[in-house]
């Protein structure tokens, strides 16, 4: 060690500065980009979300406008006409309302379509699918967020506390796991629908709000388990110890070493939860227990389409397009989830 003067040490430091280690995220990004299907699926989802977000600006017919004279029209390529009216959106206010006003200023009363045909009540199917997408995607995001918050807080608390509290909290989760929630939720929704006015008066919860909450509260169990397991296994790992030995402060250990590791697992689980939540929403709406008219969702549209199947006339567009929208979105979400899992935790591959 004696041969090293200050200049040489300076040079070594300079060299060390030039070498940048690949961070977890950079590595993950590189792996994710190599995953062709996931990349494509992500682009598809971004485009779809964009489209659904700005649906009120698009020149299509109002989703709830009934025209019995235009029942079951097959898809038409070009069809521009007058007749759109802002009055057909009774519930729209806030940002959606302002977008509709802007659309009126741009396109006037012009409307395009029906590019995907019309349904049993002469409503433009494309417009319904886009508006339904807003609801379905929103349910997926908000309900997953609810499950994320509950699950992460519960799991992290259980992992950090350890001992008796950990045992108790996990035993509660075990008992809840055994309950087939879907059936209980259907029962719950039956009761809640009856008491909607009471709920709205006392807690200020709208029908949609209750729906988000109930679905979100079903899916937190696995998240809680995953987070708890991760926290427990990380708490005593060598690299945490190493960081502590090197003199890292507690906040630094927490935010630089623990959080990124938990976040990656949570993120993977999150992307895999969104399609499950959306599937559950579609399932409930399909049974007539979820989203209610005048709101639209993909599950509801699929139920409408299947209800119109008959051997005399085939309204294929009425069955195909809603199923396609839901199917493609769920498939894309699954691909993104798989891609993220492979990217963030290559050890989990093939499981």
């Amino acid at each position, binding site marked *: 060690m004696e041969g090293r003067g200050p200049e040489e040490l300076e040079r070594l430091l300079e060299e060390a500065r030039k070498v940048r280690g690949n961070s977890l995220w950079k590595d993950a990004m590189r792996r994710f980009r190599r995953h062709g299907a996931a990349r494509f699926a992500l682009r598809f989802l971004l485009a779809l979300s964009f489209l659904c977000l700005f649906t009120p600006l698009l020149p299509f017919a109002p989703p709830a406008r009934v025209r019995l004279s235009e029942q079951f029209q097959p898809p038409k390529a070009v069809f521009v006409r007058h007749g759109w009216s802002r009055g057909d959106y009774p519930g729209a206010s806030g940002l959606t309302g302002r977008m509709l006003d802007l659309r009126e200023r741009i396109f006037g009363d012009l409307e395009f379509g029906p590019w995907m045909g019309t349904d049993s009540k002469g409503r433009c199917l494309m417009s319904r699918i886009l508006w339904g997408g807003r609801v379905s995607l929103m349910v997926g995001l908000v309900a997953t967020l609810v499950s994320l918050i509950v699950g992460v807080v519960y799991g992290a608390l259980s992992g950090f506390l350890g001992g008796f509290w950990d045992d108790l909290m996990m035993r509660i989760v075990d*008992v809840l796991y*055994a*309950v*087939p929630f*879907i*059936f*209980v939720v*259907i*029962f*719950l*929704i*039956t*009761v809640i629908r*009856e*008491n909607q006015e*009471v709920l709205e008066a006392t807690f200020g919860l709208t029908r949609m709000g209750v729906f988000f909450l109930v679905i979100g509260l079903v899916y937190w169990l696995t998240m809680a388990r995953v987070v708890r397991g991760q926290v427990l296994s990380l708490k005593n790992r060598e690299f945490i110890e190493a960081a502590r030995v090197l003199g890292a402060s507690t906040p630094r250990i927490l935010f630089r070493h623990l959080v990124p590791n938990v976040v990656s697992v949570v993120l993977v689980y999150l992307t895999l939860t969104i*399609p499950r939540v959306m*599937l559950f929403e*579609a*399932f409930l709406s*399909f*049974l*007539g*227990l979820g989203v209610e008219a005048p709101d639209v969702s993909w*599950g509801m549209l*699929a*139920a409408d*389409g*299947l209800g119109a*199947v008959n*051997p005399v006339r*085939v309204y*294929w567009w009425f*069955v*195909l397009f809603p*199923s396609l929208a*839901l*199917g493609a979105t*769920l*498939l894309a*979400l*699954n*691909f993104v989830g*798989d891609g993220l899992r492979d990217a963030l935790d290559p050890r989990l591959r*093939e*499981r």
Partner: protein
Amino acid sequence: MPHLLGFLAKRLFWMAATLWVVFTVSFFLMRSIPGGPYSNERNLPPEIERKFMEKFGLDKPLAEQYFEHLSRTLRGDLGPSFKLADYGVNRVLAEGLPKSAALGSLALVFALVLGLVAGLVSAVRRGGWLDHGLMVLATVGIALPNFVIAAVLILIFVITWPVLPAAGWGGARNLLLPAFCLGAPFAAYIARLTRTGMLEVLGQDYIRTARAKGLSEARVLLVHALKGGLLPVVSFLGPAVAGILTGSLVIEKIFFIPGIGTHFVQSALNRDYTLAMGCVLLYTALVYLMNLLVDVCYTVLDPRVRLD
């Protein structure tokens, strides 16, 4: 054996506890409705509503109702249906259960047979086009909801190329399409699990030993490897049964099969609380018993796993 009995007793105790929680929560949710279950009926004169309340014992204090209902349920009587006149919940469920059971077991058979064959083929032809094709199909099957699969298959096999009846309850032909739609997502899962399990097992020493002994490839695969490769599939059967029960709600609705799923959804839509509650209790018990059965099977297949 005494170990097994103890295990069963413990699990049955937890099952009873779960059922009791579900019962209690459902009961109080049901009774928390202001005005009672008939308040929303139109044109119901108050005296008739009073008679109804009397008939179903709704005029008594809540605690008394609870214990009465609980003891009646414990005796195996789920009470009268609120909305279907002259029908007890027991009778509705007894009529629906065999149909749902037939549909569910056929779906499970489809899921197992298709899933195992696809998984085996995939594992044997690892990396080939057949493997890739089957696994893409499995991904699609897992992602799509069963009513989307049903919609596509109805368009193909009922409308365009009418070989199967559209709906209803009758012969085995009526069950084919619904059972396939119900089992398809689980077949996809099982195919993936079988493939992974088989690949893991095929790399192990005892398989090489079996091959070295000069056994035929079929015997190595189907006798030696399959038993080990099956383990993940067996542990998936519990969730699969629960999922098939859930999926049957949708499938029974699409294909007009008068099973318990249809009754459950109808009771939820009609606000027929006693019937809905009976269904929830039945589903909970079924899911629990199936999981128990799977756990016992698992220990038989894999002696390393202990019951606990």
